[in-house]
Protein backbone atom coordinates (compact mmCIF):
# COMPACT_ATOMS: atom_id res chain seq x y z
CA UNK A 1 0.00 0.00 0.00
CA UNK A 2 2.83 2.35 0.80
CA UNK A 3 4.43 1.50 -2.54
CA UNK A 4 1.47 2.55 -4.64
CA UNK A 5 0.73 5.55 -2.46
CA UNK A 6 4.31 6.81 -2.78
CA UNK A 7 4.41 6.08 -6.50
CA UNK A 8 1.16 7.97 -7.00
CA UNK A 9 2.45 10.86 -4.95
CA UNK A 10 5.67 11.13 -6.95
CA UNK A 11 3.86 11.06 -10.27
CA UNK A 12 1.41 13.65 -9.00
CA UNK A 13 4.22 15.91 -7.81
CA UNK A 14 5.94 15.65 -11.18
CA UNK A 15 2.67 16.47 -12.92
CA UNK A 16 2.47 19.68 -10.90
CA UNK A 17 6.11 20.50 -11.61
CA UNK A 18 6.77 19.46 -15.19
CA UNK A 19 10.16 21.16 -15.27
CA UNK A 20 11.55 18.21 -13.37
CA UNK A 21 10.89 15.93 -16.31
CA UNK A 22 11.64 18.32 -19.11
CA UNK A 23 14.87 19.87 -17.89
CA UNK A 24 16.99 16.71 -17.74
CA UNK A 25 15.77 15.80 -21.21
CA UNK A 26 16.74 19.19 -22.64
CA UNK A 27 20.07 18.91 -20.93
CA UNK A 28 20.64 15.48 -22.49
CA UNK A 29 19.93 16.74 -25.98
CA UNK A 30 21.90 19.96 -25.66
CA UNK A 31 25.02 18.37 -24.19
CA UNK A 32 25.05 15.77 -26.94
CA UNK A 33 24.66 18.49 -29.54
CA UNK A 34 27.69 20.31 -28.17
CA UNK A 35 30.05 17.56 -29.21
CA UNK A 36 29.83 17.92 -32.98
CA UNK A 37 30.27 21.64 -32.38
CA UNK A 38 33.24 21.19 -30.12
CA UNK A 39 34.94 18.31 -31.91
CA UNK A 40 34.03 17.97 -35.58
CA UNK A 41 30.91 17.31 -37.65
CA UNK A 42 32.68 14.59 -39.63
CA UNK A 43 30.39 11.54 -39.76
CA UNK A 44 33.02 8.84 -39.21
CA UNK A 45 34.47 10.66 -36.23
CA UNK A 46 31.05 11.26 -34.73
CA UNK A 47 30.10 7.64 -35.23
CA UNK A 48 33.18 6.58 -33.30
CA UNK A 49 32.58 8.84 -30.33
CA UNK A 50 28.79 8.56 -30.41
CA UNK A 51 28.40 5.76 -27.85
CA UNK A 52 30.55 7.55 -25.30
CA UNK A 53 29.02 10.95 -25.93
CA UNK A 54 25.44 9.76 -25.58
CA UNK A 55 26.30 7.82 -22.45
CA UNK A 56 28.19 10.62 -20.76
CA UNK A 57 25.39 13.04 -21.56
CA UNK A 58 22.80 10.62 -20.17
CA UNK A 59 24.92 10.06 -17.10
CA UNK A 60 25.22 13.79 -16.42
CA UNK A 61 21.51 14.34 -17.00
CA UNK A 62 20.62 11.61 -14.51
CA UNK A 63 23.14 12.97 -12.02
CA UNK A 64 21.62 16.44 -12.20
CA UNK A 65 18.10 15.15 -11.78
CA UNK A 66 18.89 12.84 -8.90
CA UNK A 67 20.09 15.68 -6.73
CA UNK A 68 16.53 16.79 -6.17
CA UNK A 69 15.23 13.33 -5.38
CA UNK A 70 14.93 13.89 -1.65
CA UNK A 71 15.60 17.56 -1.27
CA UNK A 72 12.05 18.86 -1.37
CA UNK A 73 10.91 16.19 1.06
CA UNK A 74 13.78 17.03 3.36
CA UNK A 75 13.10 20.76 3.31
CA UNK A 76 9.39 20.39 3.91
CA UNK A 77 9.75 17.92 6.76
CA UNK A 78 8.06 15.11 4.84
CA UNK A 79 11.25 13.10 5.03
CA UNK A 80 11.13 13.09 8.83
CA UNK A 81 7.56 11.88 8.62
CA UNK A 82 8.73 9.07 6.39
CA UNK A 83 11.52 8.16 8.75
CA UNK A 84 9.42 8.16 11.90
CA UNK A 85 6.66 6.07 10.35
CA UNK A 86 6.41 2.47 11.46
CA UNK A 87 7.36 0.75 8.27
CA UNK A 88 10.47 -0.40 6.55
CA UNK A 89 11.96 2.42 4.48
CA UNK A 90 12.86 0.05 1.66
CA UNK A 91 9.41 0.07 0.09
CA UNK A 92 8.75 3.81 -0.21
CA UNK A 93 12.33 4.38 -1.35
CA UNK A 94 11.94 1.74 -4.06
CA UNK A 95 8.72 3.44 -5.13
CA UNK A 96 10.57 6.75 -5.39
CA UNK A 97 13.28 5.22 -7.54
CA UNK A 98 10.76 3.56 -9.84
CA UNK A 99 8.87 6.83 -10.18
CA UNK A 100 12.07 8.71 -10.85
CA UNK A 101 13.03 6.31 -13.60
CA UNK A 102 9.61 6.61 -15.22
CA UNK A 103 9.87 10.39 -15.13
CA UNK A 104 13.54 10.96 -15.91
CA UNK A 105 15.07 7.73 -17.21
CA UNK A 106 12.40 6.69 -19.64
CA UNK A 107 12.42 9.96 -21.62
CA UNK A 108 16.19 9.62 -21.99
CA UNK A 109 15.76 6.06 -23.24
CA UNK A 110 13.22 7.18 -25.83
CA UNK A 111 15.33 10.06 -27.10
CA UNK A 112 18.69 8.27 -27.10
CA UNK A 113 18.15 6.51 -30.46
CA UNK A 114 17.40 9.84 -32.07
CA UNK A 115 20.64 11.28 -30.75
CA UNK A 116 22.49 8.19 -31.91
CA UNK A 117 21.10 8.75 -35.37
CA UNK A 118 22.17 12.38 -35.32
CA UNK A 119 25.69 11.31 -34.44
CA UNK A 120 25.73 8.97 -37.42
CA UNK A 121 25.70 5.77 -35.42
CA UNK A 122 25.07 2.78 -37.74
CA UNK A 123 21.53 1.46 -37.47
CA UNK A 124 22.62 -1.88 -36.02
CA UNK A 125 24.07 -0.01 -33.10
CA UNK A 126 21.09 2.26 -32.53
CA UNK A 127 18.89 -0.64 -31.44
CA UNK A 128 21.55 -1.78 -29.03
CA UNK A 129 21.92 1.79 -27.77
CA UNK A 130 18.24 1.81 -26.94
CA UNK A 131 18.43 -1.44 -24.98
CA UNK A 132 21.66 -0.47 -23.24
CA UNK A 133 20.32 2.90 -22.08
CA UNK A 134 17.10 1.14 -21.03
CA UNK A 135 19.17 -1.14 -18.81
CA UNK A 136 21.66 1.48 -17.73
CA UNK A 137 19.42 4.32 -16.60
CA UNK A 138 17.91 2.40 -13.65
CA UNK A 139 21.42 1.55 -12.45
CA UNK A 140 22.50 5.16 -12.71
CA UNK A 141 19.43 6.34 -10.83
CA UNK A 142 19.92 3.73 -8.11
CA UNK A 143 23.56 4.61 -7.54
CA UNK A 144 22.86 8.33 -7.83
CA UNK A 145 20.14 8.01 -5.22
CA UNK A 146 22.65 6.67 -2.73
CA UNK A 147 24.75 9.77 -3.21
CA UNK A 148 21.66 11.95 -3.01
CA UNK A 149 20.65 10.39 0.29
CA UNK A 150 24.04 11.27 1.78
CA UNK A 151 24.04 14.86 0.57
CA UNK A 152 20.39 15.79 1.03
CA UNK A 153 20.99 17.81 4.16
CA UNK A 154 23.99 19.66 2.75
CA UNK A 155 23.89 22.95 0.95
CA UNK A 156 26.63 22.10 -1.52
CA UNK A 157 24.46 19.33 -2.98
CA UNK A 158 25.01 19.15 -6.72
CA UNK A 159 28.75 19.32 -7.23
CA UNK A 160 29.56 17.23 -4.18
CA UNK A 161 27.03 14.66 -5.31
CA UNK A 162 28.80 14.43 -8.66
CA UNK A 163 32.18 13.91 -6.98
CA UNK A 164 30.81 11.07 -4.92
CA UNK A 165 28.89 9.31 -7.62
CA UNK A 166 30.90 9.69 -10.83
CA UNK A 167 33.59 7.14 -9.91
CA UNK A 168 30.81 4.68 -9.15
CA UNK A 169 29.34 5.26 -12.61
CA UNK A 170 32.44 4.02 -14.41
CA UNK A 171 31.27 0.40 -14.85
CA UNK A 172 27.91 1.37 -16.31
CA UNK A 173 29.59 3.84 -18.63
CA UNK A 174 32.26 1.40 -19.75
CA UNK A 175 29.89 -1.47 -20.44
CA UNK A 176 27.11 0.69 -21.77
CA UNK A 177 29.21 2.57 -24.27
CA UNK A 178 31.32 -0.51 -24.98
CA UNK A 179 28.39 -2.66 -26.00
CA UNK A 180 27.24 -0.02 -28.48
CA UNK A 181 30.73 0.11 -29.98
CA UNK A 182 30.63 -3.66 -30.23
CA UNK A 183 27.33 -3.48 -32.07
CA UNK A 184 28.72 -0.86 -34.44
CA UNK A 185 31.55 -3.26 -35.28
CA UNK A 186 29.19 -6.17 -35.72
CA UNK A 187 30.42 -8.05 -32.68
CA UNK A 188 28.12 -10.13 -30.44
CA UNK A 189 26.43 -8.06 -27.75
CA UNK A 190 24.33 -10.45 -25.71
CA UNK A 191 27.03 -11.08 -23.11
CA UNK A 192 27.55 -7.45 -22.23
CA UNK A 193 23.83 -6.73 -22.36
CA UNK A 194 23.30 -9.53 -19.87
CA UNK A 195 25.96 -7.93 -17.68
CA UNK A 196 24.17 -4.59 -17.86
CA UNK A 197 20.92 -6.31 -16.97
CA UNK A 198 22.55 -8.00 -14.00
CA UNK A 199 23.95 -4.68 -12.81
CA UNK A 200 20.54 -3.11 -13.14
CA UNK A 201 18.85 -5.84 -11.10
CA UNK A 202 21.56 -5.84 -8.46
CA UNK A 203 21.68 -2.10 -8.03
CA UNK A 204 17.93 -1.60 -8.08
CA UNK A 205 17.34 -4.24 -5.46
CA UNK A 206 20.26 -3.33 -3.20
CA UNK A 207 20.32 0.44 -3.51
CA UNK A 208 17.08 1.16 -1.61
CA UNK A 209 18.63 -0.34 1.51
CA UNK A 210 21.70 1.86 1.18
CA UNK A 211 19.52 4.87 0.39
CA UNK A 212 17.43 4.22 3.51
CA UNK A 213 20.60 4.08 5.60
CA UNK A 214 21.86 7.26 3.97
CA UNK A 215 18.61 9.11 4.68
CA UNK A 216 18.77 8.10 8.34
CA UNK A 217 22.35 9.30 8.56
CA UNK A 218 21.49 12.59 6.92
CA UNK A 219 18.69 13.33 9.35
CA UNK A 220 20.85 12.71 12.37
CA UNK A 221 20.42 9.13 13.35
Amino acid at each position, binding site marked *: *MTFTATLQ*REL*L*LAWRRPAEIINPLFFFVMVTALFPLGVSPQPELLATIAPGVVWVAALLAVLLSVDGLFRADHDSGALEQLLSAPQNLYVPVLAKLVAHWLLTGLPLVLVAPLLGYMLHLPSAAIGVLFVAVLLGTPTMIAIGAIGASLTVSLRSGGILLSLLVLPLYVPVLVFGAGVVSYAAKGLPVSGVLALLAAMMLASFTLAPAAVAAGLRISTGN
Partner: protein
Amino acid sequence: MTDLPLLQADQLSCERDDRVLFEALSFVAHAGQIWQLAGANGAGKTTLMRIIAGLHGDFSGRLSWPAAQARNEDPRQQLLSIGHRSGLRSELTPLENLRWWLALHQAELDVAKAEQALALLGLAGYETVPVAQLSAGQTRRVALSLLWLLDKSVWLLDEPFTALDADGVALIEGRLRELADNGALVLYSSHHRVNGEARQIRLGNGPGEVL
Protein backbone atom coordinates in the same frame (compact mmCIF):
# COMPACT_ATOMS: atom_id res chain seq x y z
CA MET B 1 0.42 -5.55 32.50
CA THR B 2 -1.85 -2.63 31.82
CA ASP B 3 0.06 -0.53 34.29
CA LEU B 4 3.31 -0.74 32.38
CA PRO B 5 4.52 2.68 31.29
CA LEU B 6 4.27 3.45 27.62
CA LEU B 7 7.57 5.27 27.54
CA GLN B 8 10.54 5.20 29.85
CA ALA B 9 13.71 7.23 29.70
CA ASP B 10 16.79 6.40 31.78
CA GLN B 11 19.72 8.78 32.09
CA LEU B 12 19.29 10.39 28.71
CA SER B 13 22.11 12.74 27.88
CA CYS B 14 22.63 14.69 24.73
CA GLU B 15 25.04 17.29 23.46
CA ARG B 16 24.96 19.57 20.48
CA ASP B 17 27.65 21.93 19.28
CA ASP B 18 29.67 21.44 22.45
CA ARG B 19 26.69 22.36 24.60
CA VAL B 20 25.03 19.96 26.98
CA LEU B 21 21.33 19.98 26.17
CA PHE B 22 20.32 17.65 28.94
CA GLU B 23 22.06 15.18 31.15
CA ALA B 24 20.93 12.11 33.08
CA LEU B 25 17.32 12.88 32.26
CA SER B 26 14.96 10.18 33.47
CA PHE B 27 11.20 9.99 33.36
CA VAL B 28 8.40 7.47 33.18
CA ALA B 29 5.29 8.24 31.15
CA HIS B 30 2.03 6.33 31.38
CA ALA B 31 -1.06 6.09 29.23
CA GLY B 32 -3.51 8.90 29.75
CA GLN B 33 -0.87 11.46 30.68
CA ILE B 34 -0.08 14.73 29.00
CA TRP B 35 3.53 15.88 29.17
CA GLN B 36 4.79 19.33 28.31
CA LEU B 37 8.36 19.91 27.23
CA ALA B 38 9.20 23.43 28.26
CA GLY B 39 12.26 25.54 27.81
CA ALA B 40 13.64 28.46 25.88
CA ASN B 41 14.29 28.26 22.17
CA GLY B 42 17.28 26.10 21.44
CA ALA B 43 17.12 24.41 24.84
CA GLY B 44 16.81 20.99 23.25
CA LYS B 45 13.06 20.35 23.15
CA THR B 46 13.05 19.43 19.49
CA THR B 47 16.12 17.26 19.93
CA LEU B 48 14.49 15.33 22.75
CA MET B 49 11.36 14.86 20.68
CA ARG B 50 13.41 13.62 17.76
CA ILE B 51 15.25 11.21 20.01
CA ILE B 52 11.95 9.76 21.22
CA ALA B 53 10.69 9.59 17.63
CA GLY B 54 13.77 7.64 16.64
CA LEU B 55 15.17 10.29 14.33
CA HIS B 56 18.16 11.35 16.35
CA GLY B 57 20.60 8.70 17.48
CA ASP B 58 23.41 10.68 19.05
CA PHE B 59 22.55 10.33 22.70
CA SER B 60 23.55 8.21 25.66
CA GLY B 61 21.22 6.58 28.10
CA ARG B 62 18.29 4.33 27.44
CA LEU B 63 14.90 4.84 25.91
CA SER B 64 12.44 2.00 26.27
CA TRP B 65 8.79 1.26 25.52
CA PRO B 66 7.84 -1.23 28.24
CA ALA B 67 4.16 -1.67 27.34
CA ALA B 68 4.87 -2.34 23.67
CA GLN B 69 7.79 -4.60 24.48
CA ALA B 70 5.66 -6.67 26.87
CA ARG B 71 3.21 -7.23 24.05
CA ASN B 72 6.06 -8.00 21.65
CA GLU B 73 5.04 -5.13 19.41
CA ASP B 74 7.10 -2.64 17.48
CA PRO B 75 6.82 0.55 19.54
CA ARG B 76 6.87 2.59 16.37
CA GLN B 77 3.53 1.16 15.31
CA GLN B 78 1.69 3.15 17.93
CA LEU B 79 3.62 6.37 17.66
CA LEU B 80 2.85 9.46 15.61
CA SER B 81 5.18 12.39 15.54
CA ILE B 82 4.17 15.75 14.08
CA GLY B 83 7.33 17.76 13.77
CA HIS B 84 8.34 21.33 13.71
CA ARG B 85 8.06 21.65 9.96
CA SER B 86 4.70 20.85 8.52
CA GLY B 87 5.71 17.75 6.59
CA LEU B 88 3.43 18.78 3.75
CA ARG B 89 4.47 19.21 0.13
CA SER B 90 3.31 22.57 -1.08
CA GLU B 91 2.44 21.36 -4.58
CA LEU B 92 -0.12 18.93 -3.21
CA THR B 93 -3.51 19.63 -1.70
CA PRO B 94 -4.29 18.88 1.95
CA LEU B 95 -6.22 15.76 0.99
CA GLU B 96 -3.41 14.49 -1.21
CA ASN B 97 -0.88 15.12 1.53
CA LEU B 98 -3.03 13.38 4.11
CA ARG B 99 -3.59 10.42 1.84
CA TRP B 100 0.13 9.76 1.63
CA TRP B 101 0.70 10.41 5.29
CA LEU B 102 -1.99 7.95 6.27
CA ALA B 103 -0.64 5.38 3.81
CA LEU B 104 2.69 5.60 5.63
CA HIS B 105 0.80 4.39 8.67
CA GLN B 106 -1.01 1.71 6.70
CA ALA B 107 -4.31 3.56 6.89
CA GLU B 108 -6.74 4.44 4.13
CA LEU B 109 -7.91 8.00 3.74
CA ASP B 110 -11.58 8.33 4.56
CA VAL B 111 -12.34 11.47 2.55
CA ALA B 112 -15.52 12.35 4.42
CA LYS B 113 -13.81 12.03 7.77
CA ALA B 114 -10.86 14.07 6.57
CA GLU B 115 -13.07 16.80 5.24
CA GLN B 116 -14.87 16.83 8.57
CA ALA B 117 -11.63 17.19 10.49
CA LEU B 118 -10.41 19.94 8.18
CA ALA B 119 -13.71 21.76 8.55
CA LEU B 120 -13.41 21.51 12.32
CA LEU B 121 -10.06 23.20 12.01
CA GLY B 122 -11.49 26.00 9.91
CA LEU B 123 -10.20 24.73 6.60
CA ALA B 124 -13.52 23.98 4.90
CA GLY B 125 -13.20 24.80 1.22
CA TYR B 126 -9.42 24.42 1.26
CA GLU B 127 -9.34 20.65 0.95
CA THR B 128 -8.35 20.71 -2.69
CA VAL B 129 -6.26 23.84 -2.75
CA PRO B 130 -2.47 23.37 -3.08
CA VAL B 131 -0.83 23.87 0.28
CA ALA B 132 1.34 26.57 -1.24
CA GLN B 133 -1.68 28.83 -1.13
CA LEU B 134 -2.32 28.30 2.57
CA SER B 135 -0.93 30.42 5.34
CA ALA B 136 1.50 29.07 7.90
CA GLY B 137 -1.24 28.62 10.47
CA GLN B 138 -3.49 26.86 7.99
CA THR B 139 -0.67 24.55 6.94
CA ARG B 140 -0.05 23.65 10.55
CA ARG B 141 -3.70 22.90 11.03
CA VAL B 142 -3.69 20.49 8.09
CA ALA B 143 -0.94 18.53 9.80
CA LEU B 144 -2.79 18.62 13.11
CA SER B 145 -5.88 17.13 11.49
CA LEU B 146 -4.09 13.82 11.95
CA LEU B 147 -5.07 14.08 15.61
CA TRP B 148 -8.53 13.17 14.42
CA LEU B 149 -7.64 10.81 11.60
CA LEU B 150 -5.33 8.28 13.18
CA ASP B 151 -5.63 6.11 16.24
CA LYS B 152 -2.30 6.08 18.02
CA SER B 153 -1.34 5.57 21.63
CA VAL B 154 1.69 7.86 21.72
CA TRP B 155 1.61 11.36 20.25
CA LEU B 156 4.68 13.56 19.88
CA LEU B 157 3.85 17.11 18.91
CA ASP B 158 6.56 19.70 18.41
CA GLU B 159 5.22 23.21 18.91
CA PRO B 160 1.63 22.31 17.99
CA PHE B 161 0.25 25.69 19.00
CA THR B 162 2.49 27.80 16.78
CA ALA B 163 0.66 30.09 14.40
CA LEU B 164 -2.73 29.21 15.88
CA ASP B 165 -5.17 31.78 17.13
CA ALA B 166 -6.93 31.47 20.50
CA ASP B 167 -9.75 29.36 19.04
CA GLY B 168 -7.31 27.06 17.34
CA VAL B 169 -5.35 26.63 20.55
CA ALA B 170 -8.48 25.78 22.48
CA LEU B 171 -9.53 23.28 19.84
CA ILE B 172 -6.22 21.46 19.87
CA GLU B 173 -6.05 21.54 23.64
CA GLY B 174 -9.45 19.96 23.81
CA ARG B 175 -8.50 17.24 21.38
CA LEU B 176 -5.30 16.48 23.29
CA ARG B 177 -7.27 16.07 26.49
CA GLU B 178 -9.73 13.84 24.66
CA LEU B 179 -6.92 11.66 23.38
CA ALA B 180 -5.40 11.40 26.85
CA ASP B 181 -8.76 10.53 28.37
CA ASN B 182 -9.01 7.71 25.85
CA GLY B 183 -5.72 6.28 27.04
CA ALA B 184 -3.13 7.89 24.82
CA LEU B 185 0.13 9.43 25.94
CA VAL B 186 0.69 12.93 24.64
CA LEU B 187 4.03 14.71 24.69
CA TYR B 188 4.13 18.19 23.30
CA SER B 189 6.65 20.98 23.35
CA SER B 190 5.52 24.52 23.78
CA HIS B 191 5.72 27.59 25.94
CA HIS B 192 2.00 27.23 26.34
CA ARG B 193 0.80 24.98 29.10
CA VAL B 194 -2.29 22.89 28.66
CA ASN B 195 -4.69 23.46 31.52
CA GLY B 196 -4.90 20.57 33.86
CA GLU B 197 -2.42 18.16 35.23
CA ALA B 198 0.22 18.17 32.52
CA ARG B 199 3.56 16.80 33.71
CA GLN B 200 6.53 18.90 32.72
CA ILE B 201 10.06 18.40 31.51
CA ARG B 202 12.00 21.61 31.78
CA LEU B 203 15.08 21.92 29.64
CA GLY B 204 17.65 24.63 29.50
CA ASN B 205 18.71 24.94 33.11
CA GLY B 206 21.66 22.60 33.07
CA PRO B 207 20.72 18.93 33.08
CA GLY B 208 16.97 19.31 32.77
CA GLU B 209 14.35 18.60 35.37
CA VAL B 210 11.23 16.53 35.49
CA LEU B 211 8.33 18.02 37.39
